[in-house]
């Protein structure tokens, strides 16, 4: 499945991702540093204190010098320090938050693929029955609902109403007690994040299953006397997945983006929450850092999706 060529391909892609990350963070850096220096601070600093702070962050130097320093630090993996919390380095924060977001995103992706595929397969196998119509309608509603609406309803049902019905004995606690989410804390946000994408996967899986089930090799499999379940899973589903995987890249992107909102609703300490907080706090260095983290996350996700092609479709080689 994976050959030497694949390895070379991965290395090439990693180089490209690094360049893209540098490019994106440079753009954000230059965009933000066009603003006058004093716009960079939310507190009212006066006189020498202001001068000293500017100097501390190197903001008193010409832009090109600042940029070179920024690039140099980037190569060492140093994203600088927070403007709001002086002395706090950004890199470890962003790395930790990346892993939290990736954790939630991964569970969401599992929901997306698992739910979407099963719904799609069932709808295709029961084509034009009430079950098919029910699932198809659900998926149309699903992809039209913004994830924060789904999140809100989940909180309402599992957090508020469930608590009222069971008199506080059994309900979903909103919030994120530890650094990483437990199974109990992660499934609602992951579901909210994954459901709209799952609807799209379900629609595509259904269509592509229906097409694959008409193919000659399915007839061959039946003529061999294989069990229906084997035919569905081994022969039909694997082929039906190929077109579905092509949308997985954009869907993963939607999940990453959606994280900004969902993390804020559920209070998850991930990249998305930091993004909103840092923008509202005008902590520009953190904004740049978070953006860098996002660019890396997107690049790696797309690489992962492309490698999935190779696993699913033997005709693709890199």
């Amino acid at each position, binding site marked *: 499945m994976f050959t030497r060529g694949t390895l070379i391909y991965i290395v090439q892609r990693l180089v490209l991702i690094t360049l893209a990350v540098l490019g994106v963070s440079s753009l954000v850096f230059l965009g933000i540093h066009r603003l006058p220096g004093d716009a960079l601070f939310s507190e009212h600093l006066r006189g020498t204190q202001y001068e000293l702070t500017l100097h501390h962050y190197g903001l008193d130097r010409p832009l090109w010098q600042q940029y070179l320093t920024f690039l140099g630090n980037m190569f060492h993996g140093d994203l600088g320090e927070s403007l709001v919390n002086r002395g706090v380095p950004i890199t470890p924060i962003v790395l930790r938050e990346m892993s939290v977001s990736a954790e939630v995103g991964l569970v969401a992706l599992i929901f997306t693929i698992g739910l979407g595929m099963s719904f799609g397969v069932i709808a295709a196998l029961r084509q034009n029955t009430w079950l098919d119509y029910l699932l198809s309608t659900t998926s149309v509603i699903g992809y039209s609902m913004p994830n924060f609406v789904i999140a809100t309803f989940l909180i309402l049902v599992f957090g508020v109403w469930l608590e009222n019905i069971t008199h506080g004995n059994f309900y979903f606690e909103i919030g994120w007690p530890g650094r990483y989410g437990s199974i109990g804390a992660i499934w609602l946000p992951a579901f909210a994040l994954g459901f709209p994408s799952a609807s799209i996967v379900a629609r595509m899986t259904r269509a592509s299953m229906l097409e694959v089930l*008409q193919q*000659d*090799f399915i007839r*061959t499999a039946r*003529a061999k006397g*294989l069990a229906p379940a*084997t035919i569905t899973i081994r*022969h039909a589903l694997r082929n039906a997945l190929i077109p579905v995987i092509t949308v997985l890249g954009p869907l993963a992107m939607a999940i990453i983006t959606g994280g900004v909102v969902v993390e804020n609703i559920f209070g998850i300490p991930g990249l998305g929450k930091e993004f909103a907080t840092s923008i509202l706090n005008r902590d520009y260095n953190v904004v740049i850092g978070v953006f860098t983290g996002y660019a890396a996350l997107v690049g790696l996700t797309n690489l992962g999706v492309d490698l999935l092609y190779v696993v699913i479709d033997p005709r693709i080689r890199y």
Partner: protein
Amino acid sequence: MATPILQVKDLQTQFTTHDGVVRAVDGVSFDLYPGESLGIVGESGSGKSVTALSLLRLVPNPGRIVGGQVLFRNDDLLQLSDEEMREIRGRDIAMIFQDPQSSLNPVLRTGFQIAEAMLAHQRSTRSQALRRAVELLRRVRIPAAESRAKDYPHQLSGGMRQRAMIAMGLANAPAIVVADEPTTALDVTVQAQILELLADLNHELGAAVVMITHNMGVVAGLCTRVLVMYAGQIVEQGPVEQIFEDPQHPYTWSLLKSIPRVDAVRHERLRSIEGIAPDLLRPPRGCRFHPRCPFRVEKCFSDDPHLIEVKPDQRAACWVTMDRARAEMGADDLLDIRPGSASGVQAGRLVE
């Protein structure tokens, strides 16, 4: 001859479409004897492929088998449960399909697709089955069988793919192999090799072969008996040599006229059949071939002919038969083969 291994009685398969019911197979009956090689010939749309698919109950939607019997080892296959039928498929009756390109799963290794046929019916481990698959590939004369077994279908040539399909059909040493146009999608040179392979396997393994084809040449090379189908019905059947020498149905006669023969006694003109195959939504009344038949008589317009013994072992469904056409209408010297040209019976009330 021995007792038949498969008996098909009055098989009826229909397709329900928006425009009406298409009787793709309309009352087909025949026997298949152990180890023999039976050809079913006809144009596309004659119902020969649907007949083959009906034997294994693999007719695609919206097709339905609505009547008749398919008797195999004292069972009527049409009455079996889905699970019982599944066990027959691939184990007792195997099928080889027309287009090996689309009939093999593109995402599974060739060897595995063969092994899978065994694993569905036999107690054996995956590695045993895979080893057997390599043997089978060797048996269908694929060079470097071990490495080919690990290839995906797109890495094989067309001929090799069809060999792999045949290996798959032979995996469980079935009693019957149904081959649906196995050479149509292949180059001419490869066609000959595949036919030769099928003939050898028929002799070596003793499996009965049902060969579905539109090509009389294929039948001549491989089969001992032949059924000729037209518009969902059998119009003539008998031993291959006899039919080739002395066809009695005008349709068979014109089919044989339309292929070049190296052993032709006289220098004959090659002729294609006039007209187009009938629309099975609204089949013609009477004999279904009459709108295209040069030898038709009045009766052909109104009455449906039944298969009757015209020669020893040879049956044809025709009111005229070629013996009479030769004697009374000069069929051998006929140049004009337009409908009714030889008999002079023209349609005043033809075609609804």
